[in-house]
């Protein structure tokens, strides 16, 4: 067993059977991808240099710890058995859960979502199955084997057999958040203290009927004479035997720790993840990637084929940007000199009809056309103008099971006013900004605002 030194969790012990995977190319590549994208290159967080690799290791460490705690705290015998059976698979899933991230993490994720109809989760599944499949199958834990299919299902949160497996890596209170929130805040230099150990010690697995007994009777009545598939009737006939399992936070201490984790998440979005200067830098690199795709300096296949995708990391992309010359190289040069585009707040999305329709319909090409039109008005090239809209996921209701008294289950927000308050949208949500290259665009701010109003469909100046 080897160990890794980690600033958040102390020594992380790597079981011998897992070492080959840790040394594999796709995993090791994560050492070359910064966890927080451009945060350390621009803005007030120069220390945020940590990588996806250390986050994945930390997540694996916590997943292993959580499995041990679930085993200890869960009373139902066959669920205990299931935790034992799946622990190795969960560890692997936690280790690879972010393997589908590309250069500068969320920067590439936005390109994938908006232009490839994919996400880093899709790429994770694709890399696990198509690149790492044999490596995962070759792992020899002390008991059983690890199946790549199970690994990708758990990493994506879609395992159909045991929901608690999904909850471990992919829920409102999961080991992913328990690692990245303390890790990101530590490296950003913000003193939000959250130790995951106590929360993990207060977690167990609960079992609930897949369909409540009261409903089974009613459903059977509904389908008695209905033209329904036989398979569905069979399902209802056996529905009493189908249960779901979920992770659950128990005790008052557990609730307080959930609240703390969720408050830190909320605050981190505001103060770090959407910090303005580094956000502009991210958007500049995003725009450089789009320009390279347009000029065929990056191929669509580079972003969709898992074998080619893993060739990309932060350093490789910076290299290709410089080799591309022109605009992408200019962006690298800007970042090296600490220059970012000027940010101007335009208002909220509701004020701009044309932009709103493009966003509602997810027509990102239309947004690029608006940038081009604005640039034309200011005698600039389209790359020198970026329109940005802030959208952030708030806390989700009915997703965190809590057991304050034995056998009495409820959802977190039902008993926590703090959690309830976190359901509301973020203050930044829906804000629209425009970023301009002031080296090239000398237009006055008043005129920029006026033109943006016209092109984005603000006020009464909706263009037909």
């Amino acid at each position, binding site marked *: 067993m080897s160990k890794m030194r980690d600033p958040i969790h102390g020594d992380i012990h790597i079981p011998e059977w897992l070492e080959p995977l840790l040394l594999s190319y796709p995993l090791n590549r994560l050492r070359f991808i910064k966890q927080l994208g451009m945060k350390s290159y621009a803005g007030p967080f120069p220390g945020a240099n940590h990588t996806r690799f250390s986050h994945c290791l930390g997540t694996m460490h916590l997943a292993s710890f959580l499995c041990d705690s679930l085993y200890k705290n869960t009373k139902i015998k066959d669920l205990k058995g299931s935790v034992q059976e799946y622990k190795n698979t969960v560890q692997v899933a936690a280790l690879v859960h972010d393997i589908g991230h590309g250069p500068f993490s969320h920067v590439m994720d936005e390109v994938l979502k908006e232009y490839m*109809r994919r996400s880093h989760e899709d790429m994770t599944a694709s890399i696990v199955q198509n690149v790492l499949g044999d490596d995962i199958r070759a792992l020899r834990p002390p008991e059983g084997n690890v199946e790549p299919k199970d690994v990708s299902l758990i990493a994506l949160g879609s395992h159909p057999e045991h929901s608690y497996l999904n909850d471990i890596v992919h829920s409102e209170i999961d080991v992913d958040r328990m690692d990245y929130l303390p890790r990101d805040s530590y490296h950003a230099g913000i003193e939000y203290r959250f130790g995951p150990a106590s929360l993990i010690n207060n977690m167990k697995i609960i079992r609930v009927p897949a369909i409540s007994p009261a409903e089974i009777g009613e459903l059977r009545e509904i389908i008695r004479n209905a033209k329904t598939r036989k398979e569905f009737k069979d399902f209802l006939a*056996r529905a009493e035997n189908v249960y779901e399992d979920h992770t659950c936070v128990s005790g008052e201490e557990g609730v307080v720790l959930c609240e703390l984790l969720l408050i830190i998440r909320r605050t981190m979005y505001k103060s770090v993840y959407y910090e303005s200067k580094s956000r502009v830098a991210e958007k500049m690199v995003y725009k450089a990637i789009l320009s390279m795709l347009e000029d065929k300096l990056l191929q669509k296949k580079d972003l969709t084929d898992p074998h080619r995708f893993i060739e990309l990391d932060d350093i490789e992309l910076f290299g290709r940007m410089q080799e591309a010359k022109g605009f992408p190289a200019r962006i690298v040069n800007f970042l090296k000199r600490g220059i970012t585009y000027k940010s101007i707040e335009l208002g909220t999305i509701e004020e701009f009809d044309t932009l709103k329709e493009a966003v*509602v319909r997810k027509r990102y090409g239309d947004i690029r056309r608006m940038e081009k039109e604005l640039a034309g008005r200011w005698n600039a090239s389209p790359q020198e103008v970026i329109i940005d809209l802030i959208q952030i996921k708030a806390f989700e209701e009915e997703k965190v099971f809590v057991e304050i008294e034995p056998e009495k289950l409820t959802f977190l927000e039902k008993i926590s006013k703090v959690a309830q308050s976190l359901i509301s949208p973020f203050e930044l949500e829906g804000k629209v900004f425009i970023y301009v290259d002031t080296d090239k665009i000398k237009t006055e701010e008043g005129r920029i605002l006026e033109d943006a109003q016209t092109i984005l469909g603000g006020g009464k100046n909706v263009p037909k």
Partner: protein
Amino acid sequence: MAKTSQNKRLNELSDTEKLVLVLYYSSNQEIKGRTRLEKIVYLAKETGDANFSYYFMPYYFGPYSADLMNDVKALKRFRQVSEKSIPLDEERTVYSYSLTDEGLELAQKIEREVDKKDLAKFKEFIQKTSRRKTNVLIALSKFRLYRNLMKKLK
């Protein structure tokens, strides 16, 4: 130009465009309950040709996609969808979703752009599914989700 856009296939639409159509074709152009909305879209994804890109996770009230709910919230924020909260009892609230006038206009606009055959099939599926009771939708969704598991139990 007009001819090409009219021939757009349903699966070329974005998730939010398809969501607008789901509300447009639902019975009474309204969906009462987030659970219902989630299950209708889940079934449309699993059994139809709509090609939604959402990942659904197995949850207590059936398969659930956080990205889908996020898109619904965005549509609400963009004033395409209105959300009414109806208290069921002291503890529970049901959220009802329908298109605003602006949303209706958008739905009609999208409708004009898409292949008629694709739309007819999708419309029929949504109309049929949205007439089902919520517990049936949950059971049908869970049935699809657990079908493989049931095979194992046999």
